């Protein structure tokens, strides 16, 4: 206790630099997104009509507030294109997260059952792909899935198909890419809670006559729920805004919101609409984000 008291003052100084940095480069930029989402599109550089300039005095600010417009948001909720891409993002994130949980759980469970010595090796093996470039891993799949790629060659050689199957630019390719990329994010929090579990609990369950399956559903699974929650949030939130994977692996007939935003920004140069799309995406993700924040805080700071 005394340590904390004595450390408190220097620690307070330590916070200044990172605090200012995050306010300046994380919080303030959201203000700009909000501001530009409320302004009009213009063919200019930068391509929007400024909402207000602080340098022009109070009258100008008042005038600017009068000119604020919700047009971009009205466009987003009235145009099917945007509504559909929001829906698609949620569906894709939901489906992929479920698949990830179904695949990730047995893997994490297997890891937690390994002898101690092997657990750290297995964990290392799961972490390594997380460090390897996202783009490279997607590219690796393009190699395999393309028209005359390895997968089609194997399927043809095994006479499972008679003509090459189109894999690229399909939803299955996209789901495969997402599951592949996010699997470590699902496995690691699951493993962390499963490895902490007391083995005596399962022995007790078995002594009391529970079958292994029953013991799993009554003991192991409920105790692993914090890990399940962490893994689900860690996957669901970023997948909803995913851009690279659907862009490279899925077809172009229906877009996820990340792609729509990218398209509005880079291709149509409509910064206000892109900003409004970002604001709506953020609103959509606010609840899971706050939830995740609480979880993370409890995990890192809850020891005290």
């Amino acid at each position, binding site marked *: 206790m*005394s*340590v904390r008291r004595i*450390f*408190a*003052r*220097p*620690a*307070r100084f330590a*916070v200044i630099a*990172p*605090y200012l*940095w*995050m306010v300046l*480069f*994380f919080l303030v930029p959201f203000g700009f*997104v909000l501001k530009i989402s409320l302004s009009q599109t213009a063919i200019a550089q*930068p391509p929007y009509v400024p909402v207000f300039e602080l340098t022009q005095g109070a009258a100008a600010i008042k005038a600017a507030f009068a000119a604020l417009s919700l047009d971009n948001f009205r466009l987003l909720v009235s145009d099917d294109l945007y509504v559909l891409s929001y829906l698609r993002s949620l569906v894709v994130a939901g489906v992929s997260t479920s698949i990830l949980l179904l*695949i990730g759980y*047995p893997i994490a469970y297997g890891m937690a*059952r390994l002898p101690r010595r092997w657990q*750290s090796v297995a964990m290392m*093996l*799961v*972490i390594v792909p997380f*460090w*390897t*470039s996202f*783009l*490279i*891993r997607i590219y*690796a799949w*393009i*190699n395999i899935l*393309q028209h005359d790629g*390895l997968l089609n060659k194997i399927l043809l050689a095994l006479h499972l198909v008679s003509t090459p199957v189109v894999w690229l630019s399909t939803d299955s390719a996209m789901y495969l890419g997402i599951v*592949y990329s996010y*699997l*470590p994010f699902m*496995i*690691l929090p699951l493993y962390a809670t499963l490895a902490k579990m007391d083995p005596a609990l399962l*022995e007790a*369950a078995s002594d009391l006559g529970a*079958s292994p399956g029953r013991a799993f559903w009554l003991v192991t699974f409920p105790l692993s729920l914090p890990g399940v929650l962490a893994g689900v949030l*860690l996957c669901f*939130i*970023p997948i*909803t*805004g*995913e*851009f690279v994977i659907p862009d*490279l692996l899925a077809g172009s007939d229906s877009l996820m919101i990340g792609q729509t*935003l990218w398209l509005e*920004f880079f291709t149509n140069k409509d*910064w206000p609409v892109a*900003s409004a799309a*970002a604001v709506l995406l953020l609103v959509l993700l606010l609840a899971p984000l706050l939830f995740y924040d609480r979880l*993370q*805080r409890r995990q*890192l700071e809850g*020891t005290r």
Partner: protein
Amino acid sequence: MASHPNRISRFNIASLALGLAFLYLPIAILVIYSFNGSRLVTVWGGWSLRWYHEFFGDRAMIDAAWMSFRVAASSATIATLLGTLAAVALSRGERFKGRTLFSGMLYAPLVMPEVITGLSLLLLFVAVNAERGFWTVTIAHTTLTLCFVAVVVQSRLGSLDRSLEEAAMDLGCDPVRAFLAVTLPLIWPAIIAGWMLAFTLSLDDLVIASFTTGPGSETLPIRIYSEVRLGVKPEINAICTLVIGLIAVVIVVASLATKLSSAQAKSAAPL
């Protein structure tokens, strides 16, 4: 089997093996094909280093790789400094004003979709009329990666025995000295691991860099992305293999660093 409910079953081993195979096979295939002599990506034309020669002759690609390397090294260094300070403040400081906001700002970027982070930073840079290029990308990457560093270092600080610091102060150290003499050497491995993680995350990032960079300063992922969109090129296999090799070196160094620290810190290292 029922008498040993905690014994590893065949199902456990099978799911583990299949999972690892799923994670590694595509990368292994990519590495093997980077040594393919044939121009056709899908036909095996014997072992060859031809695509590596091609890469080293590709001026634009080399420039992009150099740019990425510089951005990764500088942003990782700044991020490690700031992230460590943040971790110390959160785990050793008392409740200060805006602590909830601060930790919220630190944890949110870990999961925040990159399109949002990228767009918002770009709008900031445009608003202040900053010239976009090396520095804007570096600042953007620092903002993202300092959060990862903070989490890695914070989890190490949390598992540390407080009595060591207490002992140092009982022996007459002031808090800063106690931190430098006792705490810092103990969390050093986590700091190194944090730097490495920040470095690889920056090297890897496409979306945030695309938003925040300016004309004429492409990073490697941006360059690779524009090539990949045009189709599979064997040269890309070679570049990817080189990047994987570089990251492998980084991982070995980082894991040697974490091996020095306790197993508990290691279990929290990836996130």
